């Protein structure tokens, strides 16, 4: 009996690593099976200097391979629409157009959001992924490897549900200690989204 425990303790790290790799693979597979998403979101920005939080909410749409609409509805109206390399920003009533290839900042924003949703972040060499369990979620921590990127985001945590590996929460951790949490509700997966959704 004693030797069983010794063997178990010795092999436990390998068992856990194997289990983690299996979960990561299942999350990745599940993410790749998502063709469309329609969801509500609540964004909470925590700034270390002040006690108050900045809370905003809105709607999110995604359609594989590269269409996305991220629309803040309260307490302000702000919308980012991505159609391939074309990025449209509607700020209140003002519409601006950017090219993801030539605008570094919006290009990076597009890449990060898209890769988070479609599962490509697991293969992105700019991040190293580790897995942990936290409050009913599998949490994948993507630590920023790229030095230039670290100035903006230190790490990104994606929260997946236990049963169906659905991403319900994103936490973006900045180098300054500030962080932003985005929670998704009323998620509808793989439903037909019309082209009108992604029109400015």
């Amino acid at each position: 009996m004693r030797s069983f425990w010794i063997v178990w303790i010795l092999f436990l790290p390998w068992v856990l690593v194997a289990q983690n790799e299996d979960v990561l693979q299942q999350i990745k597979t599940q993410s790749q099976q998502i063709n469309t998403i329609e969801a509500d979101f609540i964004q909470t920005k925590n700034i270390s200097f002040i006690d108050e939080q900045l809370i905003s909410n809105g709607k999110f749409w995604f359609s594989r391979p590269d269409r996305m609409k991220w629309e803040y509805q309260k307490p302000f109206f702000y919308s980012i629409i991505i159609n391939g390399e074309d990025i449209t920003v509607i700020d209140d009533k003002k519409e601006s157009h950017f090219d993801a290839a030539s605008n570094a900042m919006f290009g990076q924003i597009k890449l990060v959001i898209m890769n988070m949703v479609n599962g490509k972040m697991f293969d992105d060499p700019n991040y190293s992924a580790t897995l942990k369990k936290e409050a009913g979620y599998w949490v994948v921590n993507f630590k920023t490897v790229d030095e230039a990127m670290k100035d903006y985001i230190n790490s990104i945590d994606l929260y997946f549900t236990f049963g169906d590996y659905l991403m319900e929460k994103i936490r973006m951790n900045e180098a300054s200690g500030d962080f932003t949490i985005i929670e998704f509700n009323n998620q509808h997966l793989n439903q037909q989204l019309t082209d009108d959704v992604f029109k400015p």
Partner: protein
Amino acid sequence: MFSNLKYFFILLLISIIMQVSAQKVVMKYDAGMMVQKKEMSGILIQSVTDSSNRFIFVSKLGLKIFDVEVGKMDFDYTIHYFSPAFKTEKRMLGVAKEMFVLGFNDELAHEKGNRVRFVKSKNGSCKSGFGLFGKRVKVCYLDSHTTVKCKCYPVSFDLRTLH
């Protein structure tokens, strides 16, 4: 006994007064800023204490763009953070700082009329003038070499209080 209690209550009162006076007042705005045709929009957080105004500008996507603190008395400023995405926008940073020095300090915000502030460069050869005209800010760079040049950069900001 009563003497000790008296001191206790006096100390308690002083600590309450100090806490109240040191409290921060935080205001949040939906903000749009335009400097030299470059536009930025986001959430501006103004934290007011007795000694300073602190301005934190956060993009609507949630990323912090800058965090600047301006002294109320001396107008000196401390940059707590400035996004590397705007590292190349030195003039924009300079203008933004001056906007806050001129536009948001309590004494000035309620003052009618124009106000101009001049800043000399380190070697003293050039000075910049920053002026607040109503709700708009104009920035002049004055070259004090043999030919004096003044170039104006219109700057504007729109604020809507967020509740």
